[in-house]
């Protein structure tokens, strides 16, 4: 009987934000580049090139410090729309190539190549082929690691593939997981940060091999359940599955009036209410929409709709302005209105929100509204103009 071992690929887009910026402006090639905004502001580094890393710059570092370390770098404001478009593009390409694809973050993906050997042959060769296709289509540099589970595949990418300038891929054979992990520092393991590293250090646990060899009773006494989990991880044991991520294609909100109406003011109030609700849905889903559609049903049940493309947004104000504009174009009959609805399509990830890029006033206002609604309920706060409805 042949023994079955899963094949999981972790794919990481190298210096993703910088790579996208270099596609947009080839003059940035071979220059230190730091994405994060104003070098004199209070933000943090969202991404930096390898040339900038040579000066000690790294992600999540205060941008002022990054400026002191590498003042000659090109400091760029993050362009989240481009990043989200490229991230979606890579996902689309991967979904065409492999049956199970999980997008774990804007620049990281897990692929399950298990049980496909009969179709595609060797999993490692297939992974290399995938890498070539993605790179060829998008011109984005990437690294990948292949192993029997997600955890080891990720470590293979971050610790081995990324360090190899020529071949940016690395495979860990089945059965060799523990021995592969053992020489790395404990920080290499996903889930161990600066704090946990500090807690392990006094006990002389600096390498993953040492962590794997520490008796489970000792670790449980020191760290509780976490101790057992960490020991298993250090031994290369991880049972988490690659999950197919299905993203919502659209968001919509609609309302049928208690009584059909001809009163434009009344309809605008409801449009504002729906816009605020849709905006909240989009922000909760951490997405922006680039296309909004308005649906209008007359009292004789004739339904008309119209859509418009716009700059990507999830702000209440922008949505209302578009909806109002569409409504003016759509309401052409002198007939009572029974229902109105707004739909948001063409969605992209709101990386601005995810990466904590500097907020603008309007975004802050929306965020504050969302926080209050989450804490005290949806009815406690809203736009004054929509209250009458």
């Amino acid at each position, binding site marked *: 009987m042949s023994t079955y071992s899963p094949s999981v690929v972790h794919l990481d887009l190298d210096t993703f934000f910088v790579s996208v910026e270099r596609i947009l402006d080839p003059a940035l090639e071979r220059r230190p580049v730091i994405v994060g905004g104003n070098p004199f502001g209070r933000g943090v580094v969202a991404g930096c090139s390898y040339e900038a890393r040579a000066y000690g710059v790294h992600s999540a570092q205060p941008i002022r410090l990054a400026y002191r370390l590498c003042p000659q770098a090109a400091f760029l404001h993050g362009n989240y729309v481009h990043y989200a478009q490229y991230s979606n593009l890579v996902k689309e390409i991967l979904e065409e190539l492999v049956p199970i694809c999980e997008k774990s973050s804007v620049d990281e993906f897990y692929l399950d190549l298990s049980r496909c050997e009969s179709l595609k042959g060797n999993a490692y060769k297939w992974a290399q082929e995938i890498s070539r296709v993605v790179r060829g289509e998008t011109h*984005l540099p990437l690294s990948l690691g292949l192993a029997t589970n997600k955890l080891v595949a990720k470590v293979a990418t971050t610790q081995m593939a990324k360090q190899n300038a020529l071949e940016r891929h690395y495979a860990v054979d089945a059965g060799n997981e523990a021995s592969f992990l053992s020489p790395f520092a404990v920080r290499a393991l996903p889930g161990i940060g600066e704090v946990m590293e500090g807690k392990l250090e006094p006990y002389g646990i600096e390498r993953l091999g040492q962590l794997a060899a520490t008796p489970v009773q000792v670790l449980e006494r020191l760290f509780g359940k976490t101790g057992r989990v960490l020991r298993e991880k250090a031994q290369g044991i991880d049972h988490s599955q690659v999950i197919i991520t299905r993203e919502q294609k659209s968001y919509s909100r609609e309302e049928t009036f208690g009584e059909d109406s001809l009163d434009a003011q009344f309809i605008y109030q409801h449009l504002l209410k729906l816009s605020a609700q849709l905006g909240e849905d989009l922000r909760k889903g951490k997405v922006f929409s680039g*296309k909004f*559609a308005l649906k209008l049903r007359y009292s004789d049940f004739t339904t008309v709709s119209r*859509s418009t493309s716009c*700059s990507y947004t999830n702000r209440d104000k922008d949505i209302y302005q578009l909806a109002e504009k569409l409504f003016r174009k759509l309401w052409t009959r002198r007939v009572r209105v029974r229902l109105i609805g707004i739909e948001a*399509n063409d969605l992209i990830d709101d990386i601005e929100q995810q990466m904590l890029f500097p907020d603008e006033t309007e975004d802050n206002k929306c965020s504050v509204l969302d926080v209050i609604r989450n804490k005290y309920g949806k009815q406690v706060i809203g736009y004054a103009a929509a209250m009458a409805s």
Partner: protein
Amino acid sequence: MKSIDRNPKPVKTKAARVSVLPPLYAQGIHLGLSSRILKFGQKNKVSPSTDLFSALEVNMDMYSPPQENTLLSLLQGSYQRIIWHVEVSELEDMKTLRPEFALFLTQLIELQANATKEQTKEQLFILSLQPTATYSDQWLDQLQQQRDNLPYSFLIESTHRSWKTERVQAKLKSTGIEQVSLDAPKLFGLIKNVDDLTAKRSYLRLLGRNSRDWFEAPPKKYEYQYPAAEISEIVERIQRLRENADDVTVILGIHPFEDACAAAQLLQKKLLAAISKEQQC
């Protein structure tokens, strides 16, 4: 006292230079600008500059057929070819056309029949799908149906990458559906500047090369201040298309007109120079 030159040298005027070179349309290249029209008596944006070229592309969405008087004025321009470029919305599944599209077509054809009895301009119809429209086989039937119903030559413009695969391209070719090529910023993977070099009719739409603002709403999105090097690249691309196609249409977009017009004139000049050089060789 001013001396009089008894043997003046012939002065090369601009008009004289132009008359020496063959007009572009005689070489099978129709160059023109595009123009967006609006409905309900709003001031339409057809620029007088459009008369400088041999083609005019009229942009509209399927909810806004032109008014009769606008249509009449469009059909009276000095250009020889008029192209109806219609942006269509899809249904929620993004795989079928909205029913409103059929209504739009009927209106357009009726309006045109009323506006002018004798039609001398060559007309093309471009069905422009939104970037979110992914390919599915359902589309193929619908496109064939639309093409068969229309009294104009029919092309489609699609931007989603699913339309650019070899399999889909082969299907479109086998059904004889002609496509628009785009010249857009080099956003790898997102926009494919692919040419069909076997098509008998080539249609190239120039959308500027403004990659940084590509996802902003117009007018920020489009930028027609092409540097000379980019114009030369475009000239080469048109020459490649011309080698195989009987007919090439090149259109520069909507906004802002002055930049697009200046770029079109520069392109015309360079194309004529390239053709003349080719003929001399």
